C-alpha cells in the first residue's frame, strides 16, 4: 500500500515536471490560443496604439530547436479610428502585402528560464527584417504558456514612408508589444 502511494506520488511529480518543462525542452507542438499584438505610434500631437487580436500561430520544438510562426492580417490592426487605420494600411502597403508574418527561432534548451531570447524574422510591408536576441517573458499557468515582450521595430526597417500630420512625420520607432497565450497541441 505504502509502495503504491510512493509510486503514485512519483508519477504525479514526474508528470507535473514534464508538463512544466514541455514548452522548454521536449519535442512538442504549440498552438496560439489567444493573442494581442499592439503597435505604438508617436507624433508630437498624437499617440496611437493599434491592436490586433486576429493573429494565428503555431510552434514546433524538435531536435533541441523551437520554430514558431505567427501571422496576422495587416488590416486587423484597430486604432479606434477607421480613417487612420486605412491610412496605416496604405502607408505599409497592406493591400499589396496583406499579412505580417513573424518567424521566431530559439534553442529549446535555453527556454527553461523565465526569459526566452528569440531570433525573429519579420515579413511586413513587402520587406523582411531580422531582430536577433529579442527578450520575451514567459510564465506558465494551468497548462498555458504566456509570452510577453516588445519588438523594437522602426519604419525604416521596412522602408515605410512615415505618415505625417500637420507636415510633421511620425516617429521612426514603432515598437510592437506582443502578448500571447500558447497551448500544447
Amino acid at each position, binding site marked *: 500500500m505504502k509502495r503504491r502511494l510512493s509510486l503514485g506520488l512519483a508519477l504525479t511529480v514526474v508528470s507535473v515536471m514534464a508538463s512544466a518543462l514541455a514548452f522548454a525542452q521536449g519535442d512538442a507542438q504549440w498552438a496560439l490560443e489567444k493573442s494581442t499584438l499592439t503597435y505604438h505610434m508617436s507624433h508630437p*500631437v498624437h*499617440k496611437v496604439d493599434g491592436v490586433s487580436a486576429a493573429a494565428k500561430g503555431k510552434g514546433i520544438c524538435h531536435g533541441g530547436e523551437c520554430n514558431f*510562426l505567427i501571422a496576422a492580417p495587416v488590416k486587423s490592426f484597430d486604432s479606434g479610428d477607421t480613417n487612420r487605420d486605412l491610412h496605416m494600411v496604405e502607408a505599409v502597403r497592406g493591400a499589396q502585402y496583406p*499579412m505580417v*508574418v513573424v518567424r521566431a527561432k530559439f534553442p529549446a534548451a535555453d527556454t527553461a528560464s523565465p526569459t526566452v531570447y528569440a531570433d525573429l524574422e519579420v515579413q511586413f510591408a*513587402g520587406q523582411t527584417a*531580422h*531582430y*536577433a536576441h529579442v527578450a520575451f517573458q514567459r510564465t506558465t499557468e494551468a497548462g498555458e504558456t504566456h509570452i510577453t515582450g516588445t519588438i523594437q521595430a522602426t519604419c525604416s526597417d521596412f522602408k515605410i514612408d512615415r505618415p505625417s500630420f500637420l507636415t510633421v512625420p511620425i516617429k521612426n520607432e514603432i515598437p510592437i508589444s506582443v502578448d500571447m497565450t500558447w497551448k500544447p497541441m
Partner: protein
Amino acid sequence: MAQSALVREARNSSLAMAGVDASKAQLPDAPVPVGSDEQQQQQPPQQQTNPPQQNEPTLGDLGISASQTQGSARQQALLDKRTHMLKVHQTLGLITAIPMAAALITGPQAKAKGRNGETITEPSQANLDFHIALGGLTTGMYAATAYYAAFAPKVPGVKKKGAIRVHEALIWVHGPGMVLTPVLGIIAYKQENAGERVHGIASAHGAVAEITAAAYGASLIAVSWPIHLKF
C-alpha cells in the same frame, strides 16, 4: 513602379498555381534594414524563396490560404489615391482656415458705419472690398477642399468609427453655412449699396459666418483628436 508591382503580382499568381507557398513567394527582395537597438541588431536580409524545413510551421498550418496572402496592386493603388486626395484635402483645409479667420476679423469693420453712425453708401471702401475678397477666397478654397474629400475613393465594407465621424457630421453645419454666408453677404452688400441699412435675412450674415467658422474649427480639431502635446 506600377509595372514592377504588376510583374510581381503575375509572378505570385503563377507560383500559387504551381503550388508554391505564396506567403514566401510573393515577398520581394529583402532590404538592408537600418540598425536599431543594441539588443536587437538586425542581420543581413535573406531571400525568402527557401522552402520551410520539416520542423518549421508554414502558413498553411495556420489555416491561411495562398489567396489570403496574395496582395492586390489595384487595391493598393486605390488606397494610394485615397491617401493622396485626403492629404490634399487636409492641406487645403488648413490653408482655408487663414482667409476664413481673416474674413471674420474684417467682417465687423466692413459694416461701414460713418462717423456719426450713418450707413456709408460707397461700397468702394477698402475694408469692405477686402472683406469681400477674403470671403470669395474662403468660399473658393472651401469648395476645393470639399471636392478632394468628396471624390477620394471609398473603401467598400469599412464601417466608420472614431473621430472621423464627428469630422464628417460637422459638414452638415459648416457646409450649408458656407453656402448661406456668401449669399447673405451679397444681399447685405446690395442693401448697403442701395443706401439702405442692412435688414431682413441679410442681417444674419455675421451670425451665420461665425457659426460656420466655429463648426469648421471644431471639425479641424475633431479630426486631430485626441491631441497629446509632447515635443
